[in-house]
Protein backbone atom coordinates (compact mmCIF):
# COMPACT_ATOMS: atom_id res chain seq x y z
CA UNK A 1 0.00 0.00 0.00
CA UNK A 2 1.36 3.42 -0.89
CA UNK A 3 0.77 6.40 1.35
CA UNK A 4 1.20 10.08 0.63
CA UNK A 5 2.39 12.16 3.57
CA UNK A 6 1.38 15.76 3.02
CA UNK A 7 3.25 18.53 4.85
CA UNK A 8 1.42 21.47 6.41
CA UNK A 9 3.17 24.32 8.25
CA UNK A 10 3.29 28.09 8.46
CA UNK A 11 4.96 29.20 5.26
CA UNK A 12 6.09 32.59 6.50
CA UNK A 13 8.01 30.79 9.23
CA UNK A 14 9.50 28.07 7.04
CA UNK A 15 10.41 30.35 4.14
CA UNK A 16 12.08 32.79 6.54
CA UNK A 17 14.45 30.14 7.87
CA UNK A 18 18.10 31.14 7.84
CA UNK A 19 20.48 29.04 5.79
CA UNK A 20 21.62 27.30 9.01
CA UNK A 21 18.07 26.51 10.17
CA UNK A 22 17.22 25.24 6.71
CA UNK A 23 20.31 23.04 6.57
CA UNK A 24 19.66 21.64 10.05
CA UNK A 25 16.03 20.75 9.24
CA UNK A 26 17.02 19.19 5.92
CA UNK A 27 19.77 17.16 7.60
CA UNK A 28 17.34 15.78 10.19
CA UNK A 29 14.78 14.89 7.53
CA UNK A 30 17.52 13.53 5.27
CA UNK A 31 18.45 10.92 7.85
CA UNK A 32 14.90 9.56 7.87
CA UNK A 33 14.62 9.74 4.10
CA UNK A 34 17.88 7.84 3.61
CA UNK A 35 16.64 5.09 5.87
CA UNK A 36 13.36 4.83 3.94
CA UNK A 37 15.21 4.85 0.63
CA UNK A 38 17.52 2.06 1.80
CA UNK A 39 14.43 0.01 2.67
CA UNK A 40 13.06 0.62 -0.83
CA UNK A 41 10.09 2.46 0.59
CA UNK A 42 10.68 6.05 -0.51
CA UNK A 43 8.97 7.36 -3.64
CA UNK A 44 9.11 10.96 -4.89
CA UNK A 45 9.80 13.78 -2.45
CA UNK A 46 8.77 17.32 -3.35
CA UNK A 47 8.82 20.72 -1.74
CA UNK A 48 6.41 23.30 -3.09
CA UNK A 49 7.21 26.97 -3.60
CA UNK A 50 5.17 29.40 -1.44
CA UNK A 51 1.44 29.80 -2.06
CA UNK A 52 2.13 33.30 -3.43
CA UNK A 53 3.46 31.62 -6.59
CA UNK A 54 0.26 29.56 -7.03
CA UNK A 55 -2.62 29.91 -9.49
CA UNK A 56 -5.99 28.22 -9.24
CA UNK A 57 -8.02 26.80 -12.10
CA UNK A 58 -11.72 26.44 -11.33
CA UNK A 59 -12.98 23.43 -13.28
CA UNK A 60 -16.47 23.04 -14.68
CA UNK A 61 -18.07 24.08 -17.93
CA UNK A 62 -16.54 27.53 -17.79
CA UNK A 63 -12.98 27.26 -16.58
CA UNK A 64 -11.74 30.20 -14.54
CA UNK A 65 -8.11 31.03 -13.75
CA UNK A 66 -7.52 32.92 -10.48
CA UNK A 67 -4.34 34.33 -8.91
CA UNK A 68 -3.42 32.70 -5.65
CA UNK A 69 -3.74 29.31 -3.98
CA UNK A 70 -6.82 27.13 -3.61
CA UNK A 71 -8.66 28.65 -0.66
CA UNK A 72 -12.01 26.89 -0.37
CA UNK A 73 -12.58 24.44 2.45
CA UNK A 74 -15.63 22.58 1.17
CA UNK A 75 -13.54 20.51 -1.23
CA UNK A 76 -10.84 18.07 -0.21
CA UNK A 77 -7.42 17.23 -1.63
CA UNK A 78 -7.94 14.11 -3.76
CA UNK A 79 -4.75 13.76 -5.74
CA UNK A 80 -1.94 15.48 -7.58
CA UNK A 81 0.21 15.44 -10.73
CA UNK A 82 3.82 16.43 -11.19
CA UNK A 83 4.26 17.80 -14.71
CA UNK A 84 7.35 19.20 -16.42
CA UNK A 85 6.49 22.56 -18.03
CA UNK A 86 8.55 25.23 -19.77
CA UNK A 87 6.61 28.02 -18.07
CA UNK A 88 3.39 28.91 -16.28
CA UNK A 89 1.43 29.13 -19.55
CA UNK A 90 2.23 25.53 -20.38
CA UNK A 91 1.37 24.46 -16.83
CA UNK A 92 -2.01 26.20 -17.12
CA UNK A 93 -2.57 24.66 -20.56
CA UNK A 94 -1.88 21.22 -19.11
CA UNK A 95 -4.22 21.86 -16.20
CA UNK A 96 -6.97 22.99 -18.60
CA UNK A 97 -6.60 19.81 -20.61
CA UNK A 98 -6.84 17.67 -17.47
CA UNK A 99 -9.78 19.73 -16.21
CA UNK A 100 -11.70 19.22 -19.43
CA UNK A 101 -11.03 15.48 -19.26
CA UNK A 102 -12.01 15.14 -15.61
CA UNK A 103 -15.60 16.19 -16.24
CA UNK A 104 -16.19 17.24 -12.63
CA UNK A 105 -16.35 20.58 -10.87
CA UNK A 106 -13.73 21.34 -8.22
CA UNK A 107 -10.39 22.98 -8.83
CA UNK A 108 -6.72 22.50 -9.62
CA UNK A 109 -4.08 24.50 -7.82
CA UNK A 110 -1.02 25.01 -10.02
CA UNK A 111 2.08 25.47 -7.91
CA UNK A 112 5.76 25.32 -8.93
CA UNK A 113 8.13 23.00 -7.05
CA UNK A 114 11.20 24.15 -5.18
CA UNK A 115 12.69 20.67 -4.78
CA UNK A 116 11.91 17.38 -6.52
CA UNK A 117 13.60 14.05 -5.90
CA UNK A 118 12.07 11.30 -8.01
CA UNK A 119 13.13 8.55 -5.60
CA UNK A 120 13.70 4.93 -6.53
CA UNK A 121 11.37 2.13 -7.53
CA UNK A 122 9.12 1.27 -4.61
CA UNK A 123 7.65 -2.20 -4.05
CA UNK A 124 4.05 -1.06 -3.57
CA UNK A 125 4.13 0.81 -6.91
CA UNK A 126 3.33 -2.12 -9.23
CA UNK A 127 -0.15 -2.48 -7.75
CA UNK A 128 -0.97 1.03 -9.07
Amino acid at each position, binding site marked *: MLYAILCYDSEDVVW*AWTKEEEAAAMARLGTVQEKLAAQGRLGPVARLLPTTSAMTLRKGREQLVI*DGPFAETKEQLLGFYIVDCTDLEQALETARELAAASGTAGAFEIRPLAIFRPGGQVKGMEGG
Partner: protein
Amino acid sequence: MTDLAWIEAALVSARPKAVGALLRHFRDLDTAEEAFQDASLRALKHWPVNGPPRDPTAWLIMVARNAAIDGKRRRAREAPLPEDERLSDLEDAESPLAERLDESDYRDDVLRLLFICCHPALTLAQQIPLALRIVSGVPVREIARAFLVGEAAMEQRITRAKARIAAAALPFETPGAAERAERLGAVATMVYLIFNEGYSAAGHDRAASDRAALAGEAIRLARLLLRLFPTEPEIMGLTALLLLQQARTPARFDAGGAVILLEEQDRGLWNRAMIAEGLALIDKAMRHRAPAPYQVQAAIAALHARAARPEETDWPQIDRLYAALERMQPSPVVTLNRAVAVSKTRGAAAALEMVEPLGDRLSGYFPFHGLKGALLRELGRIDEARSAFGRAIALAGTLAEAAHIRTHLDRLAKDS
Protein backbone atom coordinates in the same frame (compact mmCIF):
# COMPACT_ATOMS: atom_id res chain seq x y z
CA MET B 1 13.81 23.63 15.38
CA THR B 2 13.42 24.04 19.13
CA ASP B 3 10.11 25.15 20.62
CA LEU B 4 11.60 28.49 21.49
CA ALA B 5 12.96 29.11 18.01
CA TRP B 6 9.59 28.16 16.53
CA ILE B 7 7.79 30.55 18.86
CA GLU B 8 10.16 33.37 18.05
CA ALA B 9 9.71 32.78 14.32
CA ALA B 10 5.92 32.70 14.77
CA LEU B 11 6.03 35.98 16.72
CA VAL B 12 8.07 37.67 13.99
CA SER B 13 5.71 36.39 11.34
CA ALA B 14 2.58 37.47 13.25
CA ARG B 15 3.97 40.88 14.09
CA PRO B 16 2.88 43.01 11.07
CA LYS B 17 -0.72 41.80 11.19
CA ALA B 18 -0.98 41.90 14.97
CA VAL B 19 0.60 45.35 15.43
CA GLY B 20 -1.46 46.61 12.47
CA ALA B 21 -4.70 45.38 14.04
CA LEU B 22 -3.70 46.75 17.45
CA LEU B 23 -2.84 50.12 15.93
CA ARG B 24 -6.35 50.35 14.46
CA HIS B 25 -7.76 49.39 17.85
CA PHE B 26 -5.70 51.74 20.05
CA ARG B 27 -4.93 54.42 17.45
CA ASP B 28 -1.55 54.87 19.07
CA LEU B 29 1.66 53.30 17.87
CA ASP B 30 3.41 53.04 21.25
CA THR B 31 0.38 51.44 22.89
CA ALA B 32 0.06 48.97 20.02
CA GLU B 33 3.74 48.04 20.20
CA GLU B 34 3.74 47.67 23.98
CA ALA B 35 0.60 45.56 23.89
CA PHE B 36 2.16 43.29 21.28
CA GLN B 37 5.31 43.06 23.39
CA ASP B 38 3.20 42.05 26.39
CA ALA B 39 1.37 39.41 24.40
CA SER B 40 4.67 38.05 23.06
CA LEU B 41 5.98 37.59 26.61
CA ARG B 42 2.80 35.73 27.51
CA ALA B 43 3.16 33.57 24.40
CA LEU B 44 6.69 32.61 25.44
CA LYS B 45 5.28 31.54 28.78
CA HIS B 46 2.08 29.81 27.66
CA TRP B 47 2.82 28.21 24.31
CA PRO B 48 5.55 25.82 25.51
CA VAL B 49 3.13 24.55 28.16
CA ASN B 50 -0.21 24.55 26.32
CA GLY B 51 1.09 24.13 22.79
CA PRO B 52 0.87 26.85 20.14
CA PRO B 53 -2.63 28.21 19.40
CA ARG B 54 -4.30 27.34 16.12
CA ASP B 55 -4.05 30.94 14.94
CA PRO B 56 -1.08 32.62 16.65
CA THR B 57 -1.87 36.05 15.19
CA ALA B 58 -5.45 36.08 16.46
CA TRP B 59 -4.27 34.83 19.87
CA LEU B 60 -1.69 37.60 20.11
CA ILE B 61 -4.17 40.30 19.15
CA MET B 62 -6.75 39.11 21.67
CA VAL B 63 -4.24 38.73 24.49
CA ALA B 64 -2.58 42.06 23.66
CA ARG B 65 -5.92 43.85 23.78
CA ASN B 66 -6.85 42.29 27.08
CA ALA B 67 -3.43 43.03 28.56
CA ALA B 68 -3.57 46.66 27.47
CA ILE B 69 -7.06 47.09 28.88
CA ASP B 70 -5.98 45.48 32.15
CA GLY B 71 -2.94 47.75 32.15
CA LYS B 72 -5.17 50.81 31.81
CA ARG B 73 -7.40 49.65 34.65
CA ARG B 74 -4.34 48.90 36.72
CA ARG B 75 -2.96 52.37 36.23
CA ALA B 76 -6.35 53.85 37.00
CA ARG B 77 -6.87 52.01 40.27
CA GLU B 78 -3.28 51.21 41.16
CA ALA B 79 -4.51 47.72 41.86
CA PRO B 80 -2.04 44.80 41.85
CA LEU B 81 -1.39 42.96 38.58
CA PRO B 82 -4.04 40.29 38.03
CA GLU B 83 -2.92 36.71 37.75
CA ASP B 84 -2.70 35.29 34.24
CA GLU B 85 -5.48 32.85 35.06
CA ARG B 86 -7.84 35.70 35.74
CA LEU B 87 -6.84 37.75 32.74
CA SER B 88 -8.90 35.85 30.27
CA ASP B 89 -9.39 32.30 29.19
CA LEU B 90 -6.24 32.23 27.13
CA GLU B 91 -6.83 28.78 25.68
CA ASP B 92 -10.01 29.89 24.00
CA ALA B 93 -8.84 33.36 23.18
CA GLU B 94 -8.33 32.69 19.50
CA SER B 95 -11.24 30.46 18.63
CA PRO B 96 -14.08 32.92 18.03
CA LEU B 97 -11.75 35.46 16.49
CA ALA B 98 -9.98 32.97 14.25
CA GLU B 99 -13.22 32.11 12.51
CA ARG B 100 -13.64 35.67 11.36
CA LEU B 101 -10.09 36.62 10.48
CA ASP B 102 -8.50 35.70 7.22
CA GLU B 103 -5.85 37.42 5.15
CA SER B 104 -8.18 40.04 3.70
CA ASP B 105 -9.20 41.25 7.16
CA TYR B 106 -5.61 42.18 7.86
CA ARG B 107 -5.06 43.81 4.51
CA ASP B 108 -5.79 47.41 5.39
CA ASP B 109 -4.24 47.06 8.86
CA VAL B 110 -0.87 45.92 7.51
CA LEU B 111 -1.01 48.42 4.68
CA ARG B 112 -1.73 51.25 7.14
CA LEU B 113 1.14 50.19 9.37
CA LEU B 114 3.55 50.16 6.45
CA PHE B 115 2.14 53.35 5.01
CA ILE B 116 2.64 55.18 8.29
CA CYS B 117 6.30 54.23 8.16
CA CYS B 118 6.70 55.90 4.77
CA HIS B 119 4.72 58.95 5.87
CA PRO B 120 5.78 62.05 3.90
CA ALA B 121 6.57 63.86 7.18
CA LEU B 122 9.49 61.44 7.62
CA THR B 123 12.85 61.50 5.89
CA LEU B 124 14.06 58.35 4.16
CA ALA B 125 16.68 57.99 6.91
CA GLN B 126 13.78 57.73 9.36
CA GLN B 127 11.36 55.69 7.23
CA ILE B 128 13.45 52.59 6.76
CA PRO B 129 14.59 52.18 10.41
CA LEU B 130 11.03 52.83 11.58
CA ALA B 131 9.60 50.17 9.27
CA LEU B 132 12.27 47.69 10.30
CA ARG B 133 11.60 48.35 13.97
CA ILE B 134 7.79 48.48 13.95
CA VAL B 135 6.79 46.17 11.12
CA SER B 136 9.61 43.65 11.05
CA GLY B 137 10.51 43.84 14.74
CA VAL B 138 14.26 44.07 14.09
CA PRO B 139 16.02 45.01 17.36
CA VAL B 140 17.25 48.63 17.48
CA ARG B 141 20.84 47.49 18.08
CA GLU B 142 20.81 45.54 14.79
CA ILE B 143 19.29 48.45 12.87
CA ALA B 144 21.91 50.74 14.39
CA ARG B 145 24.72 48.42 13.28
CA ALA B 146 23.28 48.14 9.77
CA PHE B 147 23.24 51.93 9.43
CA LEU B 148 26.59 52.39 11.15
CA VAL B 149 25.32 54.58 13.97
CA GLY B 150 25.29 54.08 17.73
CA GLU B 151 22.36 52.32 19.36
CA ALA B 152 21.33 55.43 21.35
CA ALA B 153 21.39 57.58 18.22
CA MET B 154 19.22 55.08 16.35
CA GLU B 155 16.83 54.82 19.28
CA GLN B 156 16.50 58.59 19.19
CA ARG B 157 15.97 58.64 15.43
CA ILE B 158 13.12 56.13 15.76
CA THR B 159 11.58 57.97 18.73
CA ARG B 160 11.63 61.24 16.77
CA ALA B 161 10.04 59.54 13.78
CA LYS B 162 7.27 58.21 16.02
CA ALA B 163 6.72 61.68 17.51
CA ARG B 164 6.36 63.14 14.03
CA ILE B 165 3.82 60.51 13.13
CA ALA B 166 1.88 61.08 16.34
CA ALA B 167 1.72 64.78 15.49
CA ALA B 168 0.47 64.11 11.96
CA ALA B 169 -3.07 63.05 11.19
CA LEU B 170 -3.11 59.30 10.68
CA PRO B 171 -5.38 57.63 8.14
CA PHE B 172 -7.62 55.34 10.19
CA GLU B 173 -10.66 55.30 7.93
CA THR B 174 -10.92 52.36 5.55
CA PRO B 175 -9.28 53.52 2.31
CA GLY B 176 -11.09 53.67 -1.00
CA ALA B 177 -9.71 51.84 -4.03
CA ALA B 178 -7.67 54.78 -5.35
CA GLU B 179 -6.31 55.59 -1.91
CA ARG B 180 -5.40 51.95 -1.37
CA ALA B 181 -3.57 51.77 -4.70
CA GLU B 182 -1.64 54.93 -3.83
CA ARG B 183 -0.64 53.56 -0.42
CA LEU B 184 0.38 50.27 -1.95
CA GLY B 185 2.61 52.12 -4.42
CA ALA B 186 4.34 54.09 -1.66
CA VAL B 187 4.81 50.97 0.44
CA ALA B 188 6.20 49.00 -2.52
CA THR B 189 8.81 51.73 -3.05
CA MET B 190 9.82 51.54 0.59
CA VAL B 191 10.16 47.75 0.47
CA TYR B 192 12.33 48.13 -2.62
CA LEU B 193 14.54 50.69 -0.85
CA ILE B 194 14.90 48.42 2.19
CA PHE B 195 16.01 45.67 -0.17
CA ASN B 196 18.58 47.94 -1.79
CA GLU B 197 20.05 48.84 1.59
CA GLY B 198 20.67 45.15 2.15
CA TYR B 199 21.64 44.25 -1.39
CA SER B 200 24.35 46.89 -1.60
CA ALA B 201 26.03 45.62 1.57
CA ALA B 202 29.38 44.01 0.98
CA GLY B 203 32.03 42.57 3.22
CA HIS B 204 32.19 40.04 5.96
CA ASP B 205 31.98 42.05 9.16
CA ARG B 206 29.06 42.16 11.57
CA ALA B 207 27.69 45.46 10.24
CA ALA B 208 27.71 44.17 6.67
CA SER B 209 25.86 41.00 7.60
CA ASP B 210 23.27 42.96 9.59
CA ARG B 211 22.86 45.17 6.57
CA ALA B 212 22.62 42.23 4.20
CA ALA B 213 19.84 40.80 6.40
CA LEU B 214 17.71 43.78 5.35
CA ALA B 215 17.35 42.21 1.91
CA GLY B 216 15.76 39.19 3.56
CA GLU B 217 13.43 41.43 5.58
CA ALA B 218 12.37 43.18 2.36
CA ILE B 219 11.56 39.85 0.71
CA ARG B 220 9.54 38.86 3.73
CA LEU B 221 7.56 42.14 3.48
CA ALA B 222 7.06 41.70 -0.26
CA ARG B 223 5.68 38.18 0.25
CA LEU B 224 3.41 39.54 2.98
CA LEU B 225 2.08 42.23 0.62
CA LEU B 226 1.55 39.63 -2.07
CA ARG B 227 -0.48 37.41 0.23
CA LEU B 228 -2.64 40.41 1.15
CA PHE B 229 -2.93 41.60 -2.46
CA PRO B 230 -2.74 38.34 -4.40
CA THR B 231 -3.97 39.79 -7.69
CA GLU B 232 -1.71 42.89 -7.92
CA PRO B 233 0.69 42.34 -10.83
CA GLU B 234 3.10 45.05 -9.65
CA ILE B 235 3.44 43.38 -6.24
CA MET B 236 4.13 40.09 -8.04
CA GLY B 237 6.71 42.00 -10.08
CA LEU B 238 8.32 43.55 -7.01
CA THR B 239 8.54 40.20 -5.20
CA ALA B 240 9.93 38.53 -8.32
CA LEU B 241 12.51 41.29 -8.77
CA LEU B 242 13.75 41.01 -5.18
CA LEU B 243 13.93 37.20 -5.34
CA LEU B 244 15.73 37.11 -8.69
CA GLN B 245 18.30 39.65 -7.51
CA GLN B 246 18.77 38.08 -4.10
CA ALA B 247 19.27 34.67 -5.77
CA ARG B 248 22.61 35.94 -7.14
CA THR B 249 23.99 37.01 -3.76
CA PRO B 250 26.16 33.93 -3.16
CA ALA B 251 28.00 34.69 -6.42
CA ARG B 252 28.33 38.47 -6.19
CA PHE B 253 31.59 38.85 -4.28
CA ASP B 254 34.94 37.09 -4.50
CA ALA B 255 36.86 35.79 -1.50
CA GLY B 256 38.57 39.17 -1.13
CA GLY B 257 35.20 40.95 -1.13
CA ALA B 258 35.51 42.47 -4.62
CA VAL B 259 32.37 42.77 -6.76
CA ILE B 260 31.98 40.08 -9.42
CA LEU B 261 29.97 41.33 -12.40
CA LEU B 262 26.94 39.37 -13.57
CA GLU B 263 28.74 37.94 -16.59
CA GLU B 264 31.64 36.63 -14.55
CA GLN B 265 29.56 35.11 -11.74
CA ASP B 266 29.52 31.36 -11.11
CA ARG B 267 25.88 30.71 -12.00
CA GLY B 268 26.04 27.39 -10.18
CA LEU B 269 26.04 29.40 -6.95
CA TRP B 270 22.76 31.13 -7.72
CA ASN B 271 19.87 30.11 -5.47
CA ARG B 272 17.66 27.92 -7.69
CA ALA B 273 14.61 27.92 -5.40
CA MET B 274 14.53 31.74 -5.32
CA ILE B 275 14.90 31.81 -9.10
CA ALA B 276 12.06 29.32 -9.56
CA GLU B 277 9.81 31.39 -7.31
CA GLY B 278 10.77 34.62 -9.06
CA LEU B 279 10.16 33.16 -12.52
CA ALA B 280 6.77 31.78 -11.47
CA LEU B 281 5.78 35.18 -10.10
CA ILE B 282 6.84 37.15 -13.16
CA ASP B 283 4.97 34.67 -15.39
CA LYS B 284 1.90 35.24 -13.24
CA ALA B 285 2.29 39.02 -13.40
CA MET B 286 2.66 39.12 -17.19
CA ARG B 287 -0.69 37.41 -17.63
CA HIS B 288 -2.32 40.62 -16.39
CA ARG B 289 -0.92 42.55 -19.36
CA ALA B 290 -0.44 45.62 -17.17
CA PRO B 291 3.30 46.21 -17.43
CA ALA B 292 4.81 48.59 -14.87
CA PRO B 293 8.36 49.29 -13.68
CA TYR B 294 8.85 46.46 -11.17
CA GLN B 295 7.49 43.90 -13.60
CA VAL B 296 9.77 45.15 -16.37
CA GLN B 297 12.81 45.06 -14.09
CA ALA B 298 11.83 41.59 -12.92
CA ALA B 299 11.43 40.47 -16.53
CA ILE B 300 14.99 41.68 -17.21
CA ALA B 301 16.28 39.83 -14.15
CA ALA B 302 14.35 36.76 -15.30
CA LEU B 303 16.14 36.77 -18.66
CA HIS B 304 19.48 36.74 -16.85
CA ALA B 305 18.26 33.97 -14.55
CA ARG B 306 17.07 31.86 -17.49
CA ALA B 307 20.46 32.00 -19.23
CA ALA B 308 22.53 29.03 -18.10
CA ARG B 309 25.64 30.73 -19.52
CA PRO B 310 26.24 34.46 -20.14
CA GLU B 311 26.44 33.84 -23.93
CA GLU B 312 22.85 32.56 -23.86
CA THR B 313 21.49 35.85 -22.50
CA ASP B 314 18.70 37.29 -24.65
CA TRP B 315 20.26 40.77 -24.98
CA PRO B 316 17.92 42.04 -27.74
CA GLN B 317 14.94 41.36 -25.46
CA ILE B 318 16.72 43.02 -22.52
CA ASP B 319 17.38 46.05 -24.74
CA ARG B 320 13.64 46.20 -25.58
CA LEU B 321 12.65 45.88 -21.93
CA TYR B 322 15.02 48.70 -20.90
CA ALA B 323 13.55 50.81 -23.71
CA ALA B 324 10.10 50.16 -22.21
CA LEU B 325 11.41 51.07 -18.77
CA GLU B 326 12.90 54.29 -20.16
CA ARG B 327 9.44 55.28 -21.40
CA MET B 328 7.75 54.43 -18.10
CA GLN B 329 10.37 55.87 -15.80
CA PRO B 330 12.83 58.07 -17.73
CA SER B 331 16.12 58.26 -15.85
CA PRO B 332 19.77 58.46 -16.87
CA VAL B 333 20.47 55.36 -14.75
CA VAL B 334 17.97 53.32 -16.79
CA THR B 335 19.59 54.57 -20.00
CA LEU B 336 22.99 53.60 -18.60
CA ASN B 337 21.73 50.08 -17.95
CA ARG B 338 20.23 49.92 -21.40
CA ALA B 339 23.62 50.85 -22.83
CA VAL B 340 25.03 47.60 -21.44
CA ALA B 341 22.45 45.67 -23.48
CA VAL B 342 23.17 47.85 -26.51
CA SER B 343 26.90 47.12 -26.24
CA LYS B 344 26.03 43.41 -26.60
CA THR B 345 23.64 43.80 -29.51
CA ARG B 346 25.03 46.75 -31.48
CA GLY B 347 28.56 47.04 -30.16
CA ALA B 348 30.64 49.29 -27.93
CA ALA B 349 30.55 52.33 -30.26
CA ALA B 350 26.73 52.47 -30.26
CA ALA B 351 26.67 52.01 -26.50
CA LEU B 352 29.24 54.75 -25.94
CA GLU B 353 27.17 57.09 -28.06
CA MET B 354 24.26 56.40 -25.72
CA VAL B 355 26.35 56.82 -22.57
CA GLU B 356 28.24 60.02 -23.38
CA PRO B 357 25.26 62.44 -23.27
CA LEU B 358 24.57 61.22 -19.71
CA GLY B 359 27.87 62.70 -18.49
CA ASP B 360 26.33 65.90 -17.14
CA ARG B 361 23.79 64.14 -14.97
CA LEU B 362 25.86 61.12 -13.96
CA SER B 363 29.28 62.72 -13.47
CA GLY B 364 29.19 61.75 -9.78
CA TYR B 365 27.83 58.24 -10.37
CA PHE B 366 30.36 55.45 -9.99
CA PRO B 367 28.82 52.94 -12.47
CA PHE B 368 28.75 55.59 -15.22
CA HIS B 369 32.54 55.90 -15.23
CA GLY B 370 32.98 52.15 -14.82
CA LEU B 371 30.87 51.38 -17.90
CA LYS B 372 32.40 54.22 -19.89
CA GLY B 373 35.87 52.90 -19.09
CA ALA B 374 34.93 49.37 -20.16
CA LEU B 375 33.44 50.59 -23.47
CA LEU B 376 36.46 52.81 -24.23
CA ARG B 377 38.78 49.91 -23.50
CA GLU B 378 36.81 47.69 -25.87
CA LEU B 379 37.23 50.38 -28.56
CA GLY B 380 40.99 50.47 -27.94
CA ARG B 381 40.93 54.02 -26.53
CA ILE B 382 43.25 53.03 -23.70
CA ASP B 383 44.21 56.46 -22.31
CA GLU B 384 40.62 57.60 -22.12
CA ALA B 385 39.63 54.30 -20.55
CA ARG B 386 42.30 54.74 -17.90
CA SER B 387 41.05 58.19 -17.01
CA ALA B 388 37.42 56.95 -16.82
CA PHE B 389 38.45 54.12 -14.48
CA GLY B 390 40.44 56.64 -12.44
CA ARG B 391 37.28 58.70 -11.97
CA ALA B 392 35.36 55.56 -11.05
CA ILE B 393 37.85 54.59 -8.34
CA ALA B 394 37.63 58.07 -6.86
CA LEU B 395 33.85 57.72 -6.67
CA ALA B 396 33.68 54.12 -5.42
CA GLY B 397 31.40 53.90 -2.40
CA THR B 398 32.71 50.61 -1.08
CA LEU B 399 36.01 48.76 -1.05
CA ALA B 400 34.36 46.06 -3.15
CA GLU B 401 33.63 48.56 -5.92
CA ALA B 402 37.13 50.00 -5.78
CA ALA B 403 38.66 46.51 -5.89
CA HIS B 404 36.57 45.72 -8.96
CA ILE B 405 37.81 48.81 -10.84
CA ARG B 406 41.37 48.03 -9.86
CA THR B 407 41.11 44.70 -11.72
CA HIS B 408 40.05 46.68 -14.80
CA LEU B 409 43.07 48.96 -14.47
CA ASP B 410 45.34 45.94 -14.08
CA ARG B 411 43.95 44.48 -17.31
CA LEU B 412 44.51 47.81 -19.05
CA ALA B 413 48.11 47.79 -17.92
CA LYS B 414 48.52 44.34 -19.46
CA ASP B 415 46.85 45.42 -22.71
CA SER B 416 49.09 48.41 -23.27
